[in-house]
């Protein structure tokens, strides 16, 4: 590497070392993270991952110079203020940790709304004044009520994927609505010749939970339906057998120790039902006992 300052050579060598000694290398974007939060996140990651900020050119050099196949493609994911993350954790887990450490941040003019930004109906802290006009101008339904500015309806002020306009950003901040998230934004991660982009890395735990329950239900259904006996299915198969047998006995009016009370009760209930219809027509058609 001619024409390169000594410190830069050291830095590239250092990065290469890290690249070669960890199984997973992530490319993150640290843009917009305030310094204290970044400190906090470094502490969170301390034992599980190493975060390294550097110049884009140096990171490119290190990636291209590594003997790990395909890893140079990570440079395609340099965005904003890129940084490399080194870890031996499963990249999905790394992504999950990083996502969960993100914190809410104020709206910024020109950024993209990650989801619908809603201004909820209700009181505001604002006293009547010019702010009412600003709210209305930003498209927020507001009026004065009992000496306060009140938002009259829930309002989607910016839809997901739309750019946040300047006046809206400032109003949202004044309303203390923080629709953005800041944190280490993992754009892609490399492991064993594969690059996982952030869309792949998104793990849907709710779906996984639902799938686990679905699998269990399917297994129960199949074992009951096919009459395969195991610890879980056998009580259900017994219940199915008993329930079918009781149904048959009750429907065919077969008296035995399990059905007789129910059948007697059925007769009695039917009698009372019919009696109430009859006595509605003519009280004298039923005996005194039934009139009460």
């Amino acid at each position, binding site marked *: 590497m001619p024409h390169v300052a000594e410190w830069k050579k050291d830095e590239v060598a250092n990065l290469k070392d890290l690249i070669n000694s960890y199984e997973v290398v992530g490319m993150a974007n640290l843009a917009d993270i305030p310094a204290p939060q970044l400190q906090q996140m470094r502490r969170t990651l301390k034992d599980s991952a190493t975060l390294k900020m550097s110049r884009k050119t140096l990171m490119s050099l290190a990636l291209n110079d590594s003997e790990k196949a395909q890893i140079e493609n990570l440079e395609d994911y340099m965005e904003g203020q890129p940084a490399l993350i080194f870890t031996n954790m499963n990249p999905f887990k790394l992504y999950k940790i990083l996502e969960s450490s993100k914190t809410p941040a104020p709206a910024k003019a020109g950024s993209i709304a990650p989801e619908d930004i809603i201004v909820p109906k209700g009181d505001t802290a604002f006293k009547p004044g010019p702010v009412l006009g600003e709210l209305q101008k930003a498209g927020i339904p507001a009026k004065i009520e009992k000496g306060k500015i009140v938002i009259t309806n829930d309002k989607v002020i910016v839809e997901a994927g739309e750019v946040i306009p300047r006046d809206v950003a400032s109003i949202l901040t004044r309303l203390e609505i923080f629709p953005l998230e800041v944190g280490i934004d993992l754009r892609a991660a490399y492991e064993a010749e594969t690059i996982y982009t952030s869309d792949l890395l998104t793990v849907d735990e709710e779906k996984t939970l639902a799938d686990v329950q679905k699998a269990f239900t399917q297994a129960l259904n199949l074992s009951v339906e096919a009459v395969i006996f195991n610890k879980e299915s056998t009580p259900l198969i017994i219940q199915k057998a008993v329930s079918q047998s009781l149904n048959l006995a009750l429907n065919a009016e077969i008296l035995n120790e399990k059905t007789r009370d129910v059948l007697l009760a059925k007769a009695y209930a039917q*009698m009372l039902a019919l009696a109430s219809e009859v006595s509605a027509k003519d009280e004298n058609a039923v005996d005194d006992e039934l009139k009460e």
Partner: protein
Amino acid sequence: MEYIYTAMLLHTTGQEISEENVKKVLEAAGAEVDEARVKALIAALEDVDIEEAMEKTAVAAAAPVAAAAAPA
């Protein structure tokens, strides 16, 4: 209640709920027969759909059961 059971019995066996039949069953069951009540019963049942009236128990009953099952 014996008058009602008698009506249900005749209904189930598919016999007419007539004065004669009602009396015959009641007597077989050892009941003292009150002519006026027999007449009143038969008149009252003329406008009643027995099958439906008896089923009402079931329907009324089925509702709370449904309710109980619903939140699950």
